[in-house]
């Protein structure tokens, strides 16, 4: 059967007295079927997609404020020291009592100021190390060098320098180093918390 025939389908047994009327009815039938069908199919699909993309609209868990060391642990003008960040964390339904989240380089500068860097490389998330001989940070994955102040060294394929972390000034006065630990999106120029 060809399309012509179907489109102007006319009952074959008895001639239709009002072809216009039939056409209109058929149009309404088609429209209603499509609208109704679309609506009911979109309910499960829409609900599913909503659950799927929900993470886009959820705030990250933000930073974790944690005490890493006392000021005395860090020699004045000395080399950076690496500290592991272990804290409570929730993963969907599970709440882990204590879970390693990452690590932080701490250094007390000549002036006494404390500098904190997330040890995760802003390039691709590898773990950055400290080389005492060269007195610089070094990422072994793609051989990037970062200066002691965190800026990009030479060579360096990372789009930005090491990510500094906030140090609580008030607590420093009490002799403790509290850092707000965060992770940042890797591979982009902008320092964007995740």
């Amino acid at each position, binding site marked *: *059967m060809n*399309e012509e025939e*179907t489109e102007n*389908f006319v*009952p*074959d*047994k*008895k001639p239709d007295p009002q072809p216009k009327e039939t056409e209109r009815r*058929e149009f309404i*039938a*088609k429209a*209603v*079927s499509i609208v*109704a*069908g679309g*609506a*009911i*199919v979109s*309910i*499960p*699909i829409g*609900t*599913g*997609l*909503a*659950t*799927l993309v*929900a993470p886009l*609209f959820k705030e990250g868990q933000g930073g974790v404020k944690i005490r890493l060391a006392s000021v005395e642990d860090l020699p004045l003008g000395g080399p950076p020291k690496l500290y592991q960040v272990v804290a409570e964390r*929730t993963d*969907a*339904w*599970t*709440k*882990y*009592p204590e879970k390693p989240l990452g690590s932080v380089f701490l250094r007390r500068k000549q002036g006494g100021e404390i500098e904190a860097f997330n040890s995760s490389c802003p390039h691709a998330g590898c773990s950055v190390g400290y080389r005492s001989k060269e007195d610089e940070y070094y990422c072994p994955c793609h051989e990037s060098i970062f200066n002691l102040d965190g800026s990009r060294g030479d060579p360096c394929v990372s789009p930005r320098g090491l990510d500094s972390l906030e140090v609580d000034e008030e607590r420093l006065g009490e002799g403790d180093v509290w850092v707000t630990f965060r992770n940042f999106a890797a591979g982009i120029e902008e320092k964007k918390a995740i």
Partner: protein
Amino acid sequence: MRRFFAWVDDRTGIAKLTREALFESVPGGARWRYVWGSTLSFAIMVQFITGIFLWMAYSPSATTAWESVYFIQNEMTLGWLLRGIHHWTAQIMVILLVLHLVQVVIDSAYRAPREFNFWFGVILLFITLAISLTGYLLPWDQKGFWATKVATNLAGIIPFIGDDLQKIIVGGSDYGHHTLTRFFALHAGVLPGALVALVVVHIYLFRRHGITEAKPATRASALYYWSLLGFVFGTLTILAFVFEDATKQWVPRSICGVFLAIAARIFFLVFRGKDDDSAARPKRDGMFWPDQILKDAIACVAVMAAVLFFVFRQGTGLTPPADPSQPYNAARPDWYFMSLFQMLKFSAFEGAVGLVIGAIVVPSTLVTALFLMPLIGKSKTGHWINVTMLYGLIGGFLILTAMGFNHDANDAEYKQGVANAHTEADRLKELISIKGGIPPEGALTLVYEDPKIRGARLYAAHCSSCHPHGGKDGMGGEVKEPSAPDLKGVGSKEWIAGLLDHEGYVGPKYFGNTKFRKGKMADHLLDLDMLPEEIEAVSAALAYEAKVYGYSTPEGGQELIDSGFDLMFEDLECSDCHGIDGEDEGSGPSLTGYMSRDWMVRFIGDPTHDDFYGKKNDRMPSFLVAMQEDGNMSDGELSREEVELIVGWLREEWPRADGKVR
């Protein structure tokens, strides 16, 4: 654009395919009774869509299944709706399957050349039931766990292969991780795969043979069809009203509504039928698109509306996490297996052999009969036999199901079990929000560490044989013969005041059912005949020792408490027999720290210790092993931790949303 479509069409033949799919002619015109197949396809599609999205959030293991479903239901954006649609569509699918089967049989659509398609359809019915059965376990909650245990045990009784079969299904002899992984693979992989393959064949065969033209819609055939519908709903209405208290009010009412509508239609057919146009439908053929599709679409809208109605009205339950050590006496199979469950209660199916007959022989006979229908239905009489058989089956199914629900509605233990599951599930939800999540070991640890849930369970199991709790067993159940003090509100000022009144002391709420009804204390209380002020002061003093949850300094303030202690030491001579305030001596139980947490733990641990009842102890068992010199006790019938949980529950000391425990 046109050329692109032309190219795609040329390479795939898609246009022809769609044309064939849509422009199929429907002999005798589009009919409502043809919609069931389409609504089923729609339901299957909904299940696939929602199922795949649920899959993205579900984690099949004994310590994460319940937890991930909890997360879907309570935390995930719109997760409750996703799960609700999946759950309720599954229920409605079973009904649609039966309606489809009824329509096929009535229209004798199983006759040659369509036998194979009928058989495929029946297999599809069973695959769907298997998918439902496996899905029931996946949330790994008490309800699914215990119901599935029953189902797999039934598989275990199949002669010869049962044992091995059960082990294969369960993934070992115990239920655990592998039961879930296996059920999940069946539920989301194997069975849906088979379903799709068979549906494709089913629809292909259906298209090959075309729709079975229902008998031209004469008044007589319409009458026949409607009276059958009337029969089904009539039975349903009667059952619904007979067992009214069994169901929620709106169930019998809505069923009755449907029945009245059908009755009206029949009435119309009988009395106005002669000039009823619809009864003498034009015999012209219709087109699948849009004539039949419009009807299908409207039916599918109705299905979706019904699903959403249930999602919003009934919600989608989740009982507490599966706990093999905590039997769930409200375990029931899903409603469509209720009839089988009910049948097994008949005395005809008693004993091992009876069970095999009831759970295996009878169902397989029925299935065989179903399969034989196309062969039986070759003749006109055969067809009538089939129709009668089908209605007999449905009638039996309805009656058994109604009996099952009716039994449950009148079963106090069942109702209590359901109620407890609700309260425990609510409590668990509260706990999870208090703790900000579920520990990695799973939600069951929360249940086990919670005095409110676990303390009550332990009390019901170990204490309620003697001690009632507000007249009940701690979990809402009845106590047979209370023979020891009622411990509800123990340690509160009111509870202690009741004890100090002689009437109360020898009454059933306190020591009336123990040998101390005629003890020294009873005599002393009778002699003293304390004034209300004295009782007020002394109970304030002892409640101060106890400090149960909700304790607050009484109206009389510290003065009242002090005067209570003074009275005990002097006028009332309590200290003659009782150790008070650390001055231990006398024949009566120590009142130092009376009903405090420590006092209670030590008392329950060993009431025969000299600090308490000593040799005079009535029947109260020592739940920990005898107290040593240093006051230490090792685990006995209960562990120290369990005693602490019971005490925590009695003292109502459990974590609360406002952060308070004590």
